[in-house]
């Protein structure tokens, strides 16, 4: 095999693929050579309009843009020579010539490439007075979610290229010329594409910002945790930005195989679900009264008593699991339901199908259908439809019900049907209809607080990480389930998620 072609960057040899540009090769060099850039993005076409990535190439008469110049065998590149540094200073100064003095009110502060590159590559004083700067329109909504500030825009056209090349719909364009150039939508149209918030990610400055996140938090106060989006079965990888038990936004986490660098707006906006009316205390309900907070230990005892009284006759207890459950939760649920509660009517509760597209979105709006079905199937549990479950409740055949998870559109229906039941136990994270109607509700964790795995529509198993700790008496559902099982005589002895994973990865024992 012929050796891979190599060029030299700052004295380091770097192998490159044919057609690769210098800036891409540099990011793979040992010690990762950083070449400053604004308009280049590895997943978008090359524009070479910001000129920040100019580098010196031996034997070339002028500096060349590293994002546009293809690597050639034996090329020698310098990214830190005096000429390059002088160019970086000048170009950055030029980019800032009309830039508004907005940092205190700009959401991008703290994650702004202009700020970062100023300290690394410019460090100079301004030669423009504030009254000499060109004024343009500020805070212009381009659509329902995206806000545009023309003064901050450096016209790198990343947003235009994203909409054109990735989203597939050219909803943005550059209007006017020279000093008056700005980004805009077609007259009468707005930026309403289901992937519009990605332009906020690609924008290197504070020109495009999310209206949803606007002024909510300063980014350096947020703690970032890797996790997965639960909006559909794609399982896009995300970063959860949270602070003190509140999620403020979701950002895409790069995964070449699943979601590249993108997220759909629908999925991005599921962050709010995690903050909604989270339960931190157990609830109990007597006869026809409302659900009142109580000690978790009291609630647990009651739940055990309620189920115990029904165990004499098999098949009197039904169960349901939301498809937001992790594989580990599904396993523990399955074991308890099969071996402790001896339930025969087991259903999964889901959200209905929605829009799919050719990009990321999948019609199945539940993150772990594949995982839950696989785990319950391997335990030999036959899944009935939620219709059937509700029927059996309403007919009186089922006298007890265990519902784990509230993330379903059928919460209301199941809750109303089971409200009259005495032994209706719910383990959920929010004060949903189920929590209001159940006799006993044990508080569990929202998906952003959970550790576990989901299986996506392509069959890939991916992990969730907790973004913040539970509050009050909330605990993972698998812990409540195991304690319930233990109280009913079934001891699983799986103290944490890793132990459950270990069991899942073993070949399953035959159904008993």
């Amino acid at each position, binding site marked *: 095999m012929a050796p891979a072609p190599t060029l030299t960057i700052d004295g380091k040899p770097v192998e490159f693929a044919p057609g690769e540009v210098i800036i891409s090769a540099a990011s793979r060099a040992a010690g990762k050579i950083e070449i400053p850039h604004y308009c280049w993005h590895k997943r978008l076409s090359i524009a070479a309009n910001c000129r920040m990535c100019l580098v010196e190439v031996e034997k070339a008469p002028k500096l060349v843009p590293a994002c546009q110049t293809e690597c050639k065998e034996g090329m020698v590149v310098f990214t830190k020579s005096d000429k390059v540094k002088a160019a970086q200073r000048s170009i950055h*100064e030029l980019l*800032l010539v009309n*830039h*508004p*003095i*907005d*940092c*205190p009110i700009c959401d991008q*502060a*703290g994650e*702004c490439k*202009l*700020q*970062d590159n*100023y*300290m690394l590559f*410019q*460090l*100079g*004083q*301004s030669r*423009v*007075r*504030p009254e000499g700067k060109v004024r343009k329109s500020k805070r212009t909504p381009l659509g329902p979610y995206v806000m545009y500030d023309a003064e901050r825009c450096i016209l790198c056209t990343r947003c235009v290229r994203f909409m054109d090349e990735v989203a597939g719909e050219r909803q943005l364009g550059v209007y006017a010329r020279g000093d008056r150039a700005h980004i805009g939508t077609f007259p009468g149209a707005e930026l309403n594409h289901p992937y519009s918030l990605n332009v906020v990610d690609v924008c290197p400055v504070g020109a495009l910002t999310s209206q949803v996140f606007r002024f909510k938090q300063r980014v*350096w106060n947020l703690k970032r945790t890797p996790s997965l989006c639960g909006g559909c079965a794609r399982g896009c990888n995300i970063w959860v930005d949270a602070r003190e038990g509140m999620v403020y936004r979701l950002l895409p986490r790069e995964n070449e195989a699943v979601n590249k660098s993108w997220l759909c707006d629908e999925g991005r906006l599921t962050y709010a679900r995690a903050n909604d009316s989270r339960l931190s205390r157990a609830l109990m309900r007597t006869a026809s009264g409302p659900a009142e907070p109580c000690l978790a230990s009291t609630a647990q005892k009651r739940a055990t008593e309620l189920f115990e009284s029904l165990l004499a006759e098999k098949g009197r207890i039904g169960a349901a699991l939301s498809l937001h459950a992790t594989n580990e939760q599904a396993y523990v649920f399955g074991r308890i339901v099969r071996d402790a509660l001896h339930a025969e009517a087991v259903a999964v509760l889901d959200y209905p199908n929605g829009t799919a597209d050719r990009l990321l979105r999948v019609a199945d709006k539940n993150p772990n259908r594949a995982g839950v079905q696989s785990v319950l199937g391997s335990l030999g549990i036959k899944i009935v439809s939620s219709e059937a479950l509700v029927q059996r409740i309403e007919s009186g055949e089922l006298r007890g019900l265990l519902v784990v998870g509230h993330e379903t559109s059928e919460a209301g229906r199941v809750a109303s049907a089971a409200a009259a039941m005495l032994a209706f136990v719910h383990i959920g994270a929010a004060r949903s209809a189920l929590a209001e109607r159940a006799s006993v509700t044990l508080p569990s964790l929202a998906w952003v607080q959970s550790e576990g795995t989901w299986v996506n529509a392509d069959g890939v198993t991916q992990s969730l990480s907790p973004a913040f700790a539970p509050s009050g008496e909330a605990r993972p559902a698998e812990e409540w389930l195991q304690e319930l099982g233990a109280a009913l005589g079934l001891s699983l002895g799986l103290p944490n998620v890793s132990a459950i994973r270990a069991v899942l990865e073993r070949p399953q024992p035959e159904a008993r």
Partner: protein
Amino acid sequence: MTPAVLNKEDATVTHSTNAHAPEAHGHQGALASGDEARDLTDLAADLPSRLMEVNIGPSHPAMHGTVRIKVALDGESIVRSTTEVGFLHRGFEKECESVHWAQCMPYTDRLNYVSPLLNNFGFAQAVEKLLEVEIPIRAQYIRVLASELSRIIDHLVACAAMAMELGGFTPFLYFVEGREFMFDLIEELTGARVTCNYARIGGVAQDLPDGFAERTRAVLVKVFALIDDCDKLLTRNRIFIDRTNGVGKMTAEQAIAYGITGPFLRSTGVAHDLRKAHPYYVYDRMDFEVPVGSNGDCYDRWLVRMEEMHQSRRIVEQAFAEIPGGPVLLHDPRFVLPPKSEVTTSIEGLMNHFKLIIEGAQIPAGEIYSYSEAANGELGFFIVSDGTGKPYKCRVRSPCFSTMQAIDDVLFPGAMLSDVVPIFGSINMIGGECDR
């Protein structure tokens, strides 16, 4: 001569091996040692007895800044002493690791809280040394004269405390009044009497106010009038001399062995002053003398400090005479905040300010030891940077900490209980600096 741990069960008194035996005071001191079979019928022999243990401090008027000294007494002579420091340990070094470089400055005020400017400058000097930058010449002059004003204040305190604890309340009040006058100057210059926070990495926070030189000279006239008065009251005072002369003697070899610097070392005869030996800022342009003692006792230390104040005044006068114009702070966007006018009128200034405040000045990775002559001796800062905005390590070499070592070994054993006061006063241990 390692001090033995005080043993409560000590049934016999062991002979002190200290060279500075109390014979000089005409007192017999320790009993004969080690005779296992004592003849109890010998009426001339002393009765068997135990050492009396007295605890001095930590809360004690003479224990400046909390220190605990347990002394084992034979009559009035100290046979053994055990010093415990650390009551004012506040974790300065650890705190510095969790804040940005510039945010360490107010912490340094609280080190030697009697001469905070010297600490400010010491820290800034260390960071500037690591950056390999030189501060503007005007800033250097300002640092020199502010250091000397601070040194005068420190010595005023040391002399005041020593005098008061020996019973002379008047000199204490005179010295402290002098200190009050100096505080007015410092407040005018820095904005605070004690928590000055005046140095910046790259210079000083603000320039000298208009007319500062005139006011300083006027204040120094008043202060030195007070110093002269106290000098007349004490320096040839029979009682003062009796209590300090020959007390707490230390030889030059001992002082060097313990790493002692500053007035304490110079009182033993070693003419070592960092301002002369390794000059920094513009000290090499200054004409001044370094007072050196000969006996290494408390009286010499008193004289050295009194004379050093006069020499500091000389330096201040020269600094005012020679100070040039110019900026007092470097203009270097890597680690100096830009002028406010730039911050509010340019995006570059604003971004610069933002990044320095949020992330801290990114000092290049490396380590350096930097030293300066503080009032008590060599104040050193050993700083290690890992290239981020926060120090990786900021170690303070405290001058009075070295001196404190010598208490148990050299200074106290053999001395009388009443000598504790002048000896400890002449050490000038400042709790904040010793314990950090």
